[in-house]
Structures are given as C-alpha cells and as structure tokens.
C-alpha cells in the first residue's frame, strides 16, 4: 500500500520529514519501505520553455530555450511532448538526480545544452519516461521544485501484515500516526442527504448471512471527463494512473477511507436490478442485467 504524505496530512497535521514518518510507521507495525524522498532533489527549480524548435542536426531532438526567471538557457530535449510556454522541472548544470545522474554542460549533435528538462521518472516520482513532466502554469520561475510542487509526491510504501486491514487507507494510516504522535485526527466531512425515490433499482442479495448490507445510490447529471488536477496528482502520488473522473473518484474513496465502491452506468442497466452472489470467503459477484 502506497501512502502519499501530502494526502494523509489532510487527516493529521505534521511537519515530520518523510523519513521520520516512515520510522514512526515502521515502529507501529506498519513496515515502511522505499520512501520516495523528493527532498533529495534540492537542485531542481521551476523553469519555462520560452522557445522550442527542431534541432538542426537531429530529427527527434528539439532545441529549446528555457528561462529560470533570470537567464535563458539553451537546452536540447528529446521528449516528444516538450513545447513552448510549458512550466517544467529544470535540472541546471551541476544538479544531481536520483540514480546518480549529474547534469553537465554538453554539446548534443553540435548544439550546446546547459541543463535538462526532467521527466517524472528522472525525478523519482513515477515510471513515466515517455515525456517531460509538465507543471501547472501558476508556479513561479526559479522557485525550488520540491517546495513549490514536488512535495505532493512524497510517499512511503507500506508492507501491511494480514492483521491490519484497517491500515489499507490514508485515513487508517493517519489514525495510527495521530495516536503515536499524540496529534488530533481530523474527521472526514460527511453530509447526509435525503434520498428521493425518483428512480427504481432493485437490489437483491442471495445469501444474506455472508453479506448483511449493500448500499447503493443514484447520482444524476454525471459527465465522464478528465479528473481535476488535484485528483490526478493524488493518484500519481500513490502510483495510480488517472483514468477519468468516475474511475478516479471511486479509487479516491477506496484509498482515502478503505471502502470499495463500484460505479455502474444507470442508463445501460436494462432491467434496473443488481443481484449479489457471495462465494466462499469474500469474493462478491455482482450480476447486472444489461
């Protein structure tokens, strides 16, 4: 289970470093491994691509000018998605990246390059290496990447033992941290709504002693679209790919509260019924008639 530090801070306020949090969790019995410690990336700053054209001597390379707020640096970039006007993570000459990469002044196919535009993989955030990481536009040029944006991706990988299913969520882990560090646990905000019986849906459970309760609801006026940026970043920070707003919100609830949900398209349910079959243990079969 990957826990995003930024995410679980919504439940418990702490300024502890990722390493300290990992230690606390380990000594609580939630063994923390491989913390993604972006704090090591102290040399990376926010930059902007101010010019981007094809490299004169190479088809797949681009010759860019990147501003760090003061200077415009010539940088050769091989990413297919690099473009003028993007805010990017800039590794200037002298910077070092995870995996022992040191940025030096170089000539690439005869053209000068003084720095690197980083991909998520190079920053240690994810395995994404197809293109560079494009940052939100409101960041200030020359600012420290970690302090202004990278902190969102600090995380720890927890090896959770079978007796601790309660810790399979950010809320669950925050509960432990709050108790261990004597801090207050912020409760999730919930609001009850009056259900209106405008639509009918029939839910039946085959063996009720195995599944005493199943809750469903209908949400109207839903548009399937891209998730908002904060949700995309949350998903990214725990190593999940953002699919769309519907899939992501279901995953969001699962990773935040540890409660699984399923979302179906009401319009595609012909007979408007959901039938549950419980097969030995905890495998739940949902039978939808569509």
């Amino acid at each position: 289970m990957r826990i995003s530090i930024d995410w679980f801070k919504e439940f418990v306020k702490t300024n502890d470093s990722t390493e300290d949090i990992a230690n606390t969790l380990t000594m609580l019995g939630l063994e923390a491994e491989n913390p993604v410690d972006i704090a090591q990336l102290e040399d990376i700053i926010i930059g902007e691509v101010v010019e981007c054209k094809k490299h004169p001597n190479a088809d797949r390379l681009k010759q860019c000018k990147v501003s760090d707020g003061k200077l415009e640096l010539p940088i050769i970039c091989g990413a297919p998605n690099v473009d003028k006007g993007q805010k990017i993570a800039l590794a200037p000459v002298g910077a070092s990246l995870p995996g022992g990469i040191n940025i030096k002044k170089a000539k690439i196919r005869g053209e000068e390059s003084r720095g690197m535009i980083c991909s998520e993989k190079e920053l240690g955030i994810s395995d994404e290496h197809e293109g560079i990481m494009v940052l939100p536009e409101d960041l200030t040029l020359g600012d420290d990447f970690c302090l202004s944006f990278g902190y969102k991706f600090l995380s720890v990988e927890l090896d959770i033992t079978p007796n601790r299913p309660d810790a399979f969520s950010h809320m669950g882990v925050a509960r432990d941290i709050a108790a261990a560090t004597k801090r207050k646990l912020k409760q999730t905000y919930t609001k009850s709504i009056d259900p209106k019986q405008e639509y009918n849906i029939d839910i039946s459970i085959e063996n009720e002693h195995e599944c005493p309760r199943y809750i469903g609801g209908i949400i109207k006026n839903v548009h399937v679209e891209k998730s908002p940026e904060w949700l995309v970043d949350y998903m990214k920070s725990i190593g999940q790919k953002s699919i769309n707003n519907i899939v992501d919100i279901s995953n969001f609830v699962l990773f935040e509260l540890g409660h699984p949900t399923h979302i179906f398209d009401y319009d595609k349910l012909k007979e408007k019924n959901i039938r549950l079959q419980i097969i030995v243990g905890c495998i739940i079969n949902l039978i939808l008639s569509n």
Partner: protein
Amino acid sequence: MNIKDTIESVRKQFRTDSDPFPDDNDKIDSLKIKYLGRKGLIANLFTQMNQVEAEDRPLFGKYLNQLKNEINSVFDSSQQKDSDSKTDQIDYSLPGLNFNIGYQHPLQTTLNEIKSIFQNLGFSVAYGPEVDDDFHNFSALNFPPEHPARDMQDTFFIEKDIVLRTHTSNVQVHLMKEKEPPLRYIVPGRVYRNESISFKSYCLFHQIEGLYVDKNVSFADHKGILEYFVKQMFGAKTKMRFRPSFFPFTEPSAEVDIWSEKRGQWLEILGSGMVDPEVFKSVDIDPDVWHGYAFGLGIERICMLKYDIDDIRLLYQGDLRFLEQF
C-alpha cells in the same frame, strides 16, 4: 605333399618349438618372427595360395587362418601372463595419494554457533518431519483455511493436505502434542518455499525454531533471550531493535532487526512473539496455565550477514573456490 599336410607339419613344428614356451624375450621374439614374421612360415604358406585350385582355395584359406589364430593366441596368452606377473609387483617407494582437506560448510558453522548459544541457555535440540500435513504446518498454528496469512508463503504441495513444510514451526506443534510442558527446544531444519530463485531467495533454506513453554514466561524473558543471542552472535556492541509485526501463531509478534553500519540500514534477522493462546488450544495445552514464546531465524540470512555473502545461491552450488574461503 598336398597343402593340407604342409599346414599340419607347420602346426606340429610350432607345437614342438613352443613347448616349453621360452621365458626369454629374445627367444620369444625370434620364435614370433619365425612363424608370424613378414617372411615367416605362415606368410610363406599364404604365398602358396596361387598354386591351389580355385575351388579348394576357401578350404585352404580356412585351415591356414585357423593355424595363424592358434599361433597368435599362444603368443597373446603368454603376454597376458607376463603383464599379470608385473602388476603383482608393488613399488613401495611411490609417494601416497593426496586427499583434499575438507571444509565445514559456512551454513553448518553458523548452525553450530547458533546451537551452542542456545544450548548454553538450556535449550535442547529437536527435529521434525520435512514433509508434513496441513494441520501441523498451518491449521494448528492458527492459519485457518481462508486466512490471508497463507498467502505470505508460497507452498509446495505434495498432495492436497500434505506439504513440504514452509517453516520449522510445524515442529512446535509436534513437540507440544507429544511432550508435557515445560518445554525448551530449538529445532534446526530445512524448509521449502515455492519462490523464484534469485540472489536473495531460494526454493529451500534453513531455519532454527525456538520454543519455550512454562508457567511464568513473559515478553521480557523473550526479549532478554533474544538480546543475549544477538550480542553473542554479532558482538556486544550490536544495535538491535524489536519491531512490531504479525504472525498468526504468536501474539504479540515482533521482528528483530540489527543495524548495519556498512549499509546504513536495519536488517531483519528473525521473527518472534508470545505463543498465541489459539495454538495452545489446538494442541490441548491450557493457555490459562501455560505461557510461552517462540522465535524463528533464518540460518542463511545470519550466515550471509556474518560472512558478508551477497548471493544466497553461492551457499548451494558446492563451488570449491567459494567453500575453501571458510
């Protein structure tokens, strides 16, 4: 004189010449040359072949070959006798054969060391079966059939309910069933896991199980014993910690890590805990009267830490270049 008579006369002549068979090499050689040489009597008879009628030639050839074989075999058997008598002679001045010096396998050295530490503390050594049933390997240790902890170990199944043991903890169950408490045992043995082979895991490895059951046993006793063991094994200044963990057959459970200055990290060396009352119940020991602790340590892991070996496979390859270093 017909050809057949000539052959017979040569045969008679050879029999006279070769009886008694000469014991002098020169005489044997000259006898051989007389009969079997390039210009010897047999070769001479072969040259007479063209004087024989065509239809008689096969018969003539047959007689002649019989004679040649007879003479050959006499020489052969004499040579055989000769070499037989030579091997009977022993050269007492030859140097003896060298035997390679054997080395104790590092795993055995580690095992002996661990055993002696616990034996000094009053633990006896017990052994148990490597092929065991589901009850001893899982059920009695509080792994019910659907328990997710069974996923932690990938098991080799012999039959539906017979497995290659995945830990030496199965012997805990045997001991508690067969003997009356108090119990104080260590159990060394080989265990099997269905894991892909890499530098850090192998399909088999060795564990030592420890079991202590008595009336007044606390977690403090347990910590004390393991602390003593770590300091004996790795040196008095070793930094160690108990880290909370989970095993179905102990409650509470802890894993023990030691600090590696070289790698700058904690390294897990053993798992342990207080025997879960459910385990006592399944072997008919009253958990209200008896308490106990158990621990299991991987011999390979300790051996690799102690001797700074970085690939577990080296321990099973029997490569002398590796083994001679211990």
